[in-house]
């Protein structure tokens, strides 16, 4: 187990973590504002990947432009889901919203299977992104680097938006106490829509990244990453954006290092490990690493 090997694993963990972080941020954004877990979030990842495929293959748009298209598509789908499934459930108990989002997830998955068939498809990135880049003793592909940089860029943009713009502040206010925010004249509906739009756009980009990294997409690909990103959000503290970022990287690293550092016989327990971690974290640190104890958890 050389230093080079460990470095490689850490690098892989960071790349995986970047994707989890983006998806987790979406969970936290939405949860922070409407206190509902959007189970369909993982499927937005899938939609993002397919949107990318459509954009590159069908329309022939260049890669950077496609990223923008994917962001737009993700935002659009998010807003649609909010309108259709979440808005009517407002005020209902948590369970109802959860089930509604599960129903939406199933609808999206089945529509995907019916229209696109369950066959996985390959997803080709432009040649300049497949090239290898040397970073010291580490050799990564350009796409991996692009993923990490894009993720960081988006996270910084989001953080700046939330902290420095008026709209961002309004969002934070709504998340903190939406009754009072409404009294202050903030348009709650719009804030919720915005949260869904941004969160879903990020998830869609994560789908793009996932497809680019593994070069294979299928209608059910987003389910497991979505669940794991939820674990990441919980680790960081659901409702906290910076918590989601941190949680994403922690989970990505933990998952890769678990498989990487333990002997091969344990590689099959990857998912067992991830979900056990979830339970342990919830028990030991009910608010996650950076969460605030604004609602009952334990």
């Amino acid at each position, binding site marked *: 187990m050389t230093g080079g090997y460990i470095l490689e694993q850490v690098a892989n963990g960071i790349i995986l973590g970047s994707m989890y972080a983006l998806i987790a941020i979406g969970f936290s954004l939405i949860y922070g504002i409407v206190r509902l877990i959007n189970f369909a979030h993982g499927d937005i990842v899938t939609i993002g990947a397919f949107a990318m495929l459509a954009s590159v293959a069908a329309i022939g748009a260049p890669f950077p432009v496609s990223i923008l298209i994917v962001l737009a598509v993700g935002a659009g789908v998010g807003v649609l889901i909010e309108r259709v499934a979440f808005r009517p459930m407002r005020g209902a108990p948590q369970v109802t919203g959860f089930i509604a989002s599960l129903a939406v997830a199933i609808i999206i998955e089945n529509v995907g299977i019916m229209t696109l068939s*369950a066959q996985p498809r390959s997803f080709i990135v432009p040649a300049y992104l497949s090239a290898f880049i040397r970073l010291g003793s580490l050799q990564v592909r350009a796409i991996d680097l692009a993923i990490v940089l894009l993720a960081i860029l988006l996270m910084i943009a989001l953080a700046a938006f939330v902290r420095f713009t008026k709209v961002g502040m309004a969002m934070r206010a709504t998340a903190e106490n939406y009754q009072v925010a409404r009294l202050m004249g903030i348009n709650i509906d719009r804030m919720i829509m915005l949260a869904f739009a941004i969160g879903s756009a990020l998830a869609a980009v994560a789908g793009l990244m996932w497809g680019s990294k593994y*070069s294979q997409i*299928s209608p059910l690909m987003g389910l497991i990453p979505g669940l794991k990103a939820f674990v990441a959000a919980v680790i960081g503290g659901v409702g906290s954006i910076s918590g989601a970022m941190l949680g994403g990287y922690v989970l990505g690293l933990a998952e*890769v290092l678990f498989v990487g550092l333990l002997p091969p016989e344990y590689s099959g327990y990857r998912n067992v490990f991830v979900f056990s971690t979830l339970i342990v974290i919830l028990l030991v640190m009910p608010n996650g690493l950076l969460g605030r104890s604004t609602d009952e958890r334990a």
Partner: protein
Amino acid sequence: MKTILAKVMAAAVGLLAVAPAAEAADPIKIVALYNLSAGGLASIDGPSLNGAKLKAKEINDAGGLLGGRTIEVTAIDTKNDLKDAATGAKRAVSMDGIVAGVGHSDTTFALASAPLFQDKGLPFVTSGATSPDLPDMVGGEMFLACFGDDVQAHAMAEYAYKTLGVHNIVIWTDNAMDYTKGLSKYFQDRFTQLGGKVLLNDIYMTDDKDFSALVSRLKANPDAQAVFASSGPDTAGIIIKQIREAGIKLPILGGDGYDTDLVSTVPGPDLSDDVYFTTHAYVGLDTGVANTFRTSYQKAYGNPPENAFAALGYDALGLVADAIKRAGSTDPAAVTKALNATTAYPAVTGDIAFKNGSRVPSKPVAIMYVDHAKVNLKSTVTP
């Protein structure tokens, strides 16, 4: 992709068209059970069903069986759910006039459906479930249209040892699929029997996308001359890509799970290289029945057969039809007897014969070689 509206209209038209035809002779009913709408098997079950339907259509167009009776294939979707496999099979065997069943490309699903056919004395021919233990586990009505995993794994082990000169190997196994576990086990048995050495047995699970740890462990074994990565169709391309991306040039060996164009498209032309896999002997044969099949499939469905499972579905149905013809009747017991007596059914995937009371055919195994994303037939091994 047709819109849903078009499908509804098509169904309505279909129903109208069928009505007058109901006066014709009794159709011969065969049921096809496949996972069509969910899960990782849909990518091989869908083409299998297409192949079966194509064969039925060809037979019907040529005049049907037993004096003009048409074959009617009813497709039942088992939704990647064992309960649906069992209830689907129950529904199938309760249908009036059913003669036989075909289906499934996975042993676990075959185990859920086939026993119900067994109980009713109806033959069940699996197109793609390759476990050689299936007939023993289910009973006398269970037949395979494909070779057993032991045959293909042994063929690969021999090829690797004797032809490629690989004496030290690393094995990767998907622990979540019984198919891959069986394949690795049979490979290891023969390989070590020949004198080869397995340096490392590594594990992953079907949904894993990240193989970096396994790749690093592979790199840490400098004596390895090849890696046998036993995998299903959904992970094969990803594995090849990640191994090659890490700069490892060792030959990658696999089983018929690699028989999908994802193996070429996912890694891409640069990385999809130096891969050997065993599959059913239709791929790559540019002559005779294989070619005819390919063109008919293309004509009927608008694209070439996605993988060898399309041919297997075609063959499974063809085998049943042939048995019905030889038995001269649709009595299930007679059909089973005729199946057992098959000596040389000219299937697209290689002649099927059930010798010595075995219900697993001894069929040739094709060894394919991937050269810069181009898949070519390297050799055919006949056990």
